[in-house]
């Protein structure tokens, strides 16, 4: 007597797609009362469950969803009160940054000095005797470069742009979350 059919094999017979089922396995199935019992039980369970129908959702669900969605469609993304907190935080950070910049406390590290530092470094590099050798070996490499002429005002504008972009990034992310949860 060969081994009993597995549930997978029985399911293949039930679904009438026993492609991978060996003919010996069929023979076993035909003659084994135990396998046929399991088969009948599976058929019964399948028949019961095939009758399954969904529970009825309360009508109010679709009404509420449509109301929310129409509100979104008409008003766009609702603004969140806490947006002001983030705007305030960004503006405060921007103000502190600006104050530090103009008070000179960090000015020594800022762009005009960066240009000087770079040019000093460049001079040192050019004096290095080994560099000439490298330059000869790689004539196509242009090591001369210029830093854009940044002054305090252009740096100030750049910081402003970064702050605005940062604010929009936060605003977009938070509103998306807000729209999903609260509408």
């Amino acid at each position, binding site marked *: 007597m060969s081994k009993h059919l597995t*549930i*997978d094999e029985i399911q293949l017979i039930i679904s009438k797609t026993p492609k991978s089922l060996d003919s010996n396995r069929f023979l076993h199935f035909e003659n084994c009362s135990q396998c046929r019992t399991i088969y009948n*039980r*599976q058929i*019964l*369970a*399948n*028949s*019961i*469950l*095939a*009758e*399954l*129908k*969904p*529970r*009825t*959702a*309360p009508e*109010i*669900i*679709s009404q*509420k*969803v*449509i109301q*929310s*969605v*129409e509100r*979104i*469609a008409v008003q766009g993304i609702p603004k969140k009160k806490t947006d002001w907190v983030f705007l305030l935080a960004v503006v405060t950070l921007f103000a502190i940054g600006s104050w530090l910049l103009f008070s000179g406390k960090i000015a020594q590290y800022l762009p005009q000095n960066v240009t000087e530092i770079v040019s000093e470094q460049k001079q040192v590099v050019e004096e290095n005797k080994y560099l000439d050798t490298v330059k000869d070996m790689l004539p196509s490499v242009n090591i001369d470069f210029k830093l854009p002429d940044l002054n305090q005002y252009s740096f100030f504008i750049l910081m402003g742009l970064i702050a605005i972009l940062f604010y929009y990034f936060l605003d977009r992310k938070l509103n*998306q979350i807000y*729209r*999903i*949860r609260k*509408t």
Partner: protein
Amino acid sequence: MLTEKQLIDRLKSGDTQSLKKIMDLHQDYVYTLVIQMVKLKDVAEELTQDVFIKVYNKINSYEERSKFTTWLYTITYRTCLNYLDKKKIVFNISELTTGTNETDISKNEELLNTKHPDILNDSFDREEKQNILWETIDHLPLHQGIIITLHYLQHFSIREISDLMKLPVNTIKTHLHRGRNTMREILLKKYSEEELI
């Protein structure tokens, strides 16, 4: 009568009425899966709303490579998981490998001993039958109930359930088989085969 694809295209262009039609087609199924996972009607209503609002918000990210229902039930399943996670309700994957626990067995015993209305007579109508089926499924271990719902109601294949629940195919097969058997045993103790089919 618009096809599902046409409804989706319209929804992508912002037509809220097509969402209503999509909801008419799917909301009962979504609600059923949600209630199967969270067990509470009020919460299930809220989460079903959340699911369809997410559908509206994210419809442009649906690329039609998979079936719409697969995408929809993925959103549904994840929404419920997020809820359970927030409520610190452990959706214990290990339960899947250890099978029915003692609480579930005692629940099943309880169900077996519950007196149903006399359905042996000809009053065994469709609605009663559905109630009995869902009551039986509700008494299965959580995962088995979900897997049975996905397979027999949403017509998900075992592979699709495995992808959705991120569990091995064999685990899904085992629990589908256990769930089916438990249901059959519970039901046969109360009703005859003829009544059930």
